[in-house]
């Protein structure tokens, strides 16, 4: 049981490239922390620094009240699950789980109890004598989990553990990981680029971009009040529609502090197709360009007349001028049809012109 604290952690490679630019995160005991961000944002590097696989070039990493910057991975009391599982191919499932314990000089009887208990929890009991190559992807994933839990470490570290699994299995394993973590109540840090995985697993969500933390907090709070346009477009699928708006136009429509806003964001699900303009809200005329029906909901891709008003600055972006509207059911306008969509005042997200600051109004 331990909390993990990162204080102004930095990583600069010998070439001068700064991968982590001063990160502060505090994960309380027993919490599930998810680091999420696009590829190359430094989330994996940060996790590997906590594991001790990468050196720390600035700041402090504190696990359970002990600064571990100079401590070997084996002595940090952590366990890690790798993306490709990293099982020892020549060892049986049993030995894969027992190896770390044996290296610590644990008695064989105690090892047996722990491995068998872990195998029971993970439903691997019938496969203890098999080699990793005789297992399916999901089973390998569970062996990797087993190897982590037999250690009974202070902290679990997960490096995109589900990205090698197919979509269906990924969802099942996601639920399993969460249940397991709740039961063991072990502090966990989990890296993923999948925002859905991040939203569903996290107690604390850390959104990273370009080696920096964009926002830390409860996943729903982040969803409801993204601090920057990056977070706004990264969390939530399909991404939030972001439009630049001339200040005077916004001011006249919204008034007050909203006058400082340069960008207005509206989530696809917050639009309604209507001819009315809600008081204080925003209405847009659109030409329908494409329709995606996924069963329970339908996505309408429309283009605005004034294409220059679209903000293009973040990943997962739509082409300029394109707006996504999510409507329930399968009833949708025809392609080429002109429609009007509107969103109420409470559903608008206002940001400063550079997208770095959220404006509450």
């Amino acid at each position, binding site marked *: 049981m331990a909390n993990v604290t990162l204080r102004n952690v930095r990583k600069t490679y010998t070439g001068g490239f700064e991968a982590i630019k001063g990160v502060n995160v505090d994960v309380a005991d027993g919490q599930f922390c998810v680091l999420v961000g696009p590829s190359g944002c430094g989330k994996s590097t940060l996790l590997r620094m906590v594991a001790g696989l990468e050196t720390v070039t600035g700041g402090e990493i504190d696990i359970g009240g002990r600064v571990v910057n100079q401590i070997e991975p084996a002595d940090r009391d952590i366990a890690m699950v790798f993306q490709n599982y*990293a099982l020892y*191919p*020549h060892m049986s499932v049993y030995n894969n789980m027992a190896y770390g314990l044996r290296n610590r000089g644990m008695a064989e009887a105690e090892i047996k109890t722990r491995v068998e208990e872990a195998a029971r929890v993970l439903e691997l009991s019938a496969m203890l004598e098999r080699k990793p190559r005789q297992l399916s992807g999901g089973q390998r994933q569970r062996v990797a989990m087993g190897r982590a839990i037999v250690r009974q470490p202070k902290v679990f570290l997960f490096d995109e553990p589900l990205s090698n699994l197919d979509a269906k299995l990924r969802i099942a394993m996601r639920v399993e990981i969460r249940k397991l973590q709740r039961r063991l109540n072990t502090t966990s840090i989990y890296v993923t680029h999948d925002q859905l995985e991040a939203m569903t697993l996290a107690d604390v969500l850390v959104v990273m971009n370009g080696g920096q933390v964009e926002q830390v907090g409860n996943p729903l709070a982040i969803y409801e009040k993204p601090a920057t346009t990056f977070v706004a477009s990264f969390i939530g699928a399909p991404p939030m529609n972001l439009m630049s708006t001339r200040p005077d136009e916004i001011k006249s429509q919204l008034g007050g502090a909203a006058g400082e806003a340069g960008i207005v964001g509206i989530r696809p699900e917050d639009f309604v197709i209507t001819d009315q303009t809600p008081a204080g809200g925003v209405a847009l005329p659109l030409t329908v360009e494409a329709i995606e029906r996924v069963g329970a909901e339908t996505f309408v891709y429309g283009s605005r007349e004034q294409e220059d008003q679209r903000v293009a600055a973040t990943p997962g972006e739509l082409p300029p001028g394109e707006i996504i509207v999510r409507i329930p059911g399968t009833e949708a306008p025809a392609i080429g049809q002109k429609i009007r969509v509107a969103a109420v005042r409470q559903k608008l997200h206002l940001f400063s012109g550079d997208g770095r600051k959220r404006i509450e109004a």
Partner: protein
Amino acid sequence: MVEDEGIRRYVAHFILWIGIAIVAFPVYIAIIASTQDNALIANGQMSLLPGGHFFEVYYQTIFVGTSGSTREPVGNMMLNSLVMALAIAIGKIAISIISAYAIVYFRFPFRMSIFWIIFITLMLPVEVRIYPTYKIVADLHMLDSYAGLALPLIASATATLLFRQFFMTVPDELLEASRIDGAGPLRFFWDTLLPLSRTNMAALFVILFILGWNQYLWPLLITTRDDMQTIQVGIRKMITTTDALTEWPIVMATAVLAMLPPVFVVVAMQKLFVRGLVETEK
């Protein structure tokens, strides 16, 4: 169409049989000649069917040797060759796997220079550096010894390169998982890298054993005592006789005996080869 297929197949088989005959006939002759009487062979009246002297000839070859040129039982030569070939094969594998481990997994000063120096030795086989090597072995008083036979042939760039290439395909995560599991460098080497290299080592062993077994020039240079002769050197000596008839049955028996260990190694290791190919570990 079916008939065509049949004819084509017969032609193919016929060609294959010709190939086999070309390869196998000399071996057959050697085996036949090793069971004949020397006088018959010397007269050019050798039969293509086995003669009646099999036990006699092989007994003399293994335990006595030729009466003239070599004065040494072939059994002893085989032992010498075996010790040398095993020492070369095992020694090369041991040295190369350790040096490859150092080069791939450790950061130390001049790592790349050392790698290139090893690489360059590829271009310097024993034949090229034979004088300095002989001088060193002589100065170390290793002439006429097993150490002298094997040691200079042990350092190997090829095997080091092969293991280096293999180690570079082992995923880094295995090393990282080992580090988290508390395995130090030696443990990782012993518990993970060696078992994974098993099939590579088997393949190398076959190649290196045959290479060592077939050495001729180096043993010829550094052994002068009869009881240190290797079988390859022995065969050559048996053939060149100045004042007597070449004892062809014994020469042929020696040649047959010289073939056996490499054949045995290939056959025995083939299973491990195939298993290594079928099981894709990593």
